[in-house]
């Protein structure tokens, strides 16, 4: 038992000795094989590629999309409102890639990742609203995207008033009703955890609401990004507020 204890202690030691002023112990590199981005929507401005600290991008068609500041409130400081114009079937996308249309990263769909988005819908009728990772374009043909992993409200779908968990690959979806109602002016903390290539866990406000093992995309394509995308199904503006976007991507071989 004592030998086993010492053996485990030896294994554990490198993980506990990073307090030497560098991120890694001598001979142990800092793990740059992980990407971690936390967007609080404080800095920047509201035009595309300047939104938030990281310069997020917006794009829409055939109508327009706008970003504006939202006053901080208790527990939600640094917020943006994302609104699409009243042209019916306008698709508007907010994307972590500042220049919309660029890949987030090669191998995007094959990566294990952990994503959290805190949003507050301002509308919940006659719209499609998606939050997650996928090939989110700016045309109605991109709704739903051909591939992606995301939360969805589709008021024209089978569960028009609730959040639905979706994994979608090559135009085929696995969709699970979370049973959580989409209410206006209410904050939701969405978390998508792709913890294995074929395993995705969905959480809303810390509660595991869905677990998917099918139709999880593995190939990547153009326009893949960590995004939120909205389409109006009537001639009225649709909008939501966003407070936070967090993404952690594992296993970058670099």
């Amino acid at each position, binding site marked *: 038992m004592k030998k*086993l*204890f010492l053996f485990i202690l030896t294994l554990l030691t490198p*993980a506990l000795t990073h307090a030497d002023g560098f991120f890694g112990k001598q001979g142990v590199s800092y793990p740059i094989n992980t990407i971690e981005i936390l967007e609080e929507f404080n800095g920047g401005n509201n035009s595309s590629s300047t939104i938030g600290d990281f310069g997020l991008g917006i794009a829409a068609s055939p109508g327009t999309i706008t970003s504006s500041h939202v006053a901080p409130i208790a527990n939600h*400081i640094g917020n943006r409102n994302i609104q699409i114009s009243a042209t019916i079937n306008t698709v508007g996308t907010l994307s972590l890639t500042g220049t919309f249309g660029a890949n987030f990263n090669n191998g995007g769909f094959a990566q294990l990742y*952990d994503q959290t988005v805190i949003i507050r819908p301002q509308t919940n009728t006659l719209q499609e609203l998606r939050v997650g990772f996928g090939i989110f374009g700016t045309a109605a043909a991109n709704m739903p995207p051909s591939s992606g992993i995301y939360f969805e409200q589709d008021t024209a779908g089978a569960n028009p008033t609730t959040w639905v968990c979706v994994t979608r690959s090559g135009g085929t979806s696995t969709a699970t009703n979370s049973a959580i109602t989409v209410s206006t002016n209410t904050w939701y903390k969405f978390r998508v955890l792709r913890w294995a290539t074929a395993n995705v866990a969905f959480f809303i406000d*810390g509660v595991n609401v869905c677990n998917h093992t099918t139709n999880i995309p593995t190939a990547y394509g153009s326009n893949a990004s960590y995004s939120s995308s909205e389409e109006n199904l009537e001639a009225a503006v649709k909008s939501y507020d966003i407070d936070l976007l967090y993404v952690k991507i594992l296993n970058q071989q670099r």
Partner: protein
Amino acid sequence: MKKALIILILLLTQSVWAGDFSGWMGNPIPFNQTLAIEEFIGGSAGTTATIGELGWSINSGSGGTLTVANVNSAANHSGIKNGSLNAVANGIGILSYTTLAGNNGTQIATDLFDMTWIIRPQTNTDQDLAVGIAIWSAAAYPPTHGIYFEQDTAGANPTLWQCVTRFSSTSTTTATAITVATNTWYKLRIHRNGVNNVLFYIDGVLVCTHTTNILAPTINSLAPATLVKNLAALAAKTFDLDYFYYKVYGLSR
């Protein structure tokens, strides 16, 4: 020994998960704080909303024009931006983390925060120089509400850093014994560790503790910034910024 082994295995397990996903199913990352660090290395120096890594904004008023430029790194200070306000009397320039408008605050009045700036004044005469958080305006100084360090060459302690808490245009001001010298780096830290308690540090030394005139509710559009006001038209007023750290904590989300 057996119990110790079990504890060790538990510790190891946590370490493995923390290294992968910073949390695990049912244990999401606690987003109970916001954290911003600006090294003033990236971004575009001269264009508002793109300055530095976080997209800082330039705000000018009262006849002044603030310009921001890159400065060569110095030993121990990698990545420096210079803010320069032109030689117009009463001109004001503000370099702010967020664009200054009614809804653009980075915290509400009662939020606790810990903020550090590393700044190198390049001028120290005929100026107001303020570093901290407030509802800033390029049209007037001082702000109506704020928590900040200040040099006011027209004030009671014209050559010293002062600590200021200010609410509804009433200030609590404490002079430190630290002189504002040009071309000298200062590490200015403001830690609001209680709703009615603010600690001010210069270069790691606690210089002031304020418990009055601290931001109260309904003041919800506060932004971190460095402000300079030119009190004479004789010369430009400038400062260098090397670093900004800003944590707002105690959130529930």
